[in-house]
């Protein structure tokens, strides 16, 4: 089977029902997406498929319908995506383990809705669990990122 991840095409020989998360992590060595629950409860595994935020632990490799972007493809330390820059400015991360997923979820939200209300932010990100309690800074960083994106 073929998967395109962060612009690179990969030929893979895996079971069709292997979750995309484990294809990325263990077959392709792309470890930005994290394993937290495996049952769509934590959002640590969030990636984009054709720009849409999905839980990689819930998508079977055989069912992937488009190009995959992981946090590594969103931006890099040398070339940050706006959401990542806002995350750094607010120093959101504590342990940081949930943050790949939080950032991917936030980036998808802002791509669709450049000026979300508090309620819309809460709604979009409440599936992303943070055990360290970084929520107040997540809210602030989403707003900063939204403002930065609107200003271009």
């Amino acid at each position, binding site marked *: 089977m073929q998967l395109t991840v962060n612009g690179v095409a990969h030929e893979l020989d895996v*079971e069709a029902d*292997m*979750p995309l*998360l*484990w294809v990325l*992590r*263990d*077959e392709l*060595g792309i*470890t*930005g*997406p*994290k*394993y*937290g*629950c*495996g*049952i769509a*409860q*934590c959002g*640590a595994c969030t990636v984009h498929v054709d720009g849409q935020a999905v839980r990689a632990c819930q998508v079977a490799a055989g069912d992937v319908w488009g190009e995959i972007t*992981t*946090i*590594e493809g969103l*931006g*890099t*330390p040398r070339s*940050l995506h706006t959401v*990542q820059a806002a*995350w*750094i400015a607010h*120093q*959101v*991360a*504590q*342990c*940081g*383990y*949930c*943050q*790949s997923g939080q*950032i991917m979820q936030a980036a998808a939200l802002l791509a669709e809705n450049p000026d979300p209300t508090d309620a819309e*932010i*809460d*709604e979009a*990100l*409440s*599936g*992303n*669990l*943070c*055990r*360290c*309690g*970084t*929520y*107040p*800074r*997540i*809210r602030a960083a989403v707003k900063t990122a939204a403002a930065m994106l609107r200003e271009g």
Partner: protein
Amino acid sequence: MSRIGRPARRSFLIGSAAVAGGVAFGYYRYRQPLPNPLLEGLAEGEAALTPFVRIDAQGVTLITPRADMGQGASSIQAYLLAEGLDLDPLTVRLDPGDPSPAYYNGAVLAEGLPFAATDTGWLAETARAAADVPARLMGMQITGGSSTVPDMFDRLRHAGAVARETLKEAAAQQTGIARDRLGTDDGAVILPDGQRLPYGALAARAATLEPVTDAIPRPASAWRYLGKRVQRTDIVAKSTGTETYGIDLALDGMLYASVRTNPGLGGAVNGYDASAAEAMRGVLKVVPVTGGVGVIADNTWRAFRAVNAIAIDWGAPGYPASSDQIWPALRAAMTAGNRDSRFRDEGDVENALFEGEAIAAEYRVPYLAHAPLEPMNATVRVTDSRADIWTGTQIPRFVQTHAARLTGLDEAAVHVHALPMGGSFGRRLEDDYVLQAVELAMAVKGRPVKMTWTREEDMTHDFPRPAQIARGRGTVREGRVEALDLSVVGQSVSASWLGRVMVAPPGPDTTIVAGAWDQPFAIPHYRVTGYRAPEMVPVSSWRSVGASANGFFHDCFLDELIHAAGADPLEERLRLCADPLSRKVLEAAAEMSGWSGPRISETRARGVAFCLSFGVPMAEVVEISRTEAGIRIDKVYAACEIGRVLDPDNFEAQVAGGILFGLGHAMNCELSYADHAPEQANFDSYPGMRLSQAPQIEVRGLENGDRIRGIGEPGVPPAAPALANAIFALTGQRIRELPLNRHVTFA
């Protein structure tokens, strides 16, 4: 001045060593300098100026031996060293270093002593100073107890300054200019003419010198990084998916594995059938491990699938099977024979209760899982001559000792490579998961094996925060609290944990009553008694340890008495508070929240709570409102005293994170037991807190005290009682058990 009763001298026992052990072990040995582990294996031209600074021609590496689990330990250690050394830590390499006795924690044992933090009398101070002795002698390298900053504040700034002065001495010898005419700036020695000699260029010469040990760290007035808003050293990696946690490690030829062990912790394996698993794609080997079975495969998901396909016949462990049996067993343990401590006994409690009209209430809190978001994992390679272990751990030296025992190798042949942790909250003070990975790796010698737990394995094989029950009795008179008598029963965390990693200590366990007995209130008749329940589910330290339960018991029951007295919750706490630093904290919380009584409006109310833990007095005010969807937490104000705020940004993050940790579990979480195992196995039934429930938080750090404190834990204990007290103010309902969602609905 302290009114707290003096414990008997024989009870100063921590770990397996008496604190007075300086004499027993020999003061001479204690005084001997610890060997610098960096000197081993140093290459030509490299210098290890202290155990914390390594320099070669490429530049500086700072050694940050306290483990980072998200609390910012690496970053603050780097900034402490950098402040002494005079360089920007964002421009140098950081390394947790190899486990070594040189990195022992001299502050962590002091918390276990039976002295309240407010007690600065001779005996308390002597015992605190002496607690350094066994820690040093045993080389206890532990991260926990909010001790990194108290332990490292002087040590690392001094280590940095020693390195700086030694580099200046090297420059002096190289240039012939006297050391006292040289300066430093951001990673270079500065000559009188302004010329810069980078530290890296001085390494070869510095390596030949004796370290200049009379170096003096920069005074606070000249600090460049400390006390200022700085960038966390790991923030870019953690915002770009490029931080390598234990679970992310990749090594050549690495295999992937998972295990299942008895969900009845400690129970036997009567037998298993792995034939289905063995036939599955990618499965290399099925390996029995202590208490269960593991699968080694070529992919983590294949290992998960295969290990779940093994039919296992579990034996029963030695504790009651269900919560229905555990609660009565706990309650029944509150007997004179099980009395563990009475560190506080003032006035005449019995007489006061006899003469007044006694108010009585029973409280309880459930077992709780740590459930850091990164599940337990470890990567291990074992050969005939050495073992390498890559993992996130708070106890690298214990890991080394235990792995040596298991493999039959010398401790020196066991190499622990510490990796950043995706949370811990105390979970990685245990090394059960690491030793399982060692057992697996021994079955495929020479190949590295990365073992990862499923979330279900993680949640059901935690060593949880113990369930506890408390009984409060008290009286009020003329609008004042007159007597407070609190009895707490619980399993001993110290005995359970130390029994696993070392040896269970004799003497009372302060964690059973921590956060209750040591509070800075002057109540005329005041008593706190701890009872030790028999070991049931094995338990361990959960962020803020004993205070996580006792903060709730003590403050909520105090709130009940204050209400019965007809006094204002904040004013009466202030009136009772005998510690000036704690009073300022309560005053700050009152001012921040605009306190004007518990009721704000028909639909809004607030609660206040106070708890002194890990030396930090913390007051929190929680504001809630009634909405159609249920009770909503709008805002939390928190004030605390920590001596000095070293990193304002991370300080705020740790307090806020602690508050949300305390609130989320108080609202929504418990581990209940059936068939010896928790009924909650994943975040669907153990949700913590989600973004939509998170309130706004305002934090203030006071700097009136002369002692520097750690802040990873003290935010937790007042959160649950402040919320429960607010719910009482709003609804008139006094909830005496957690989680609160058993009794109210949250929006």
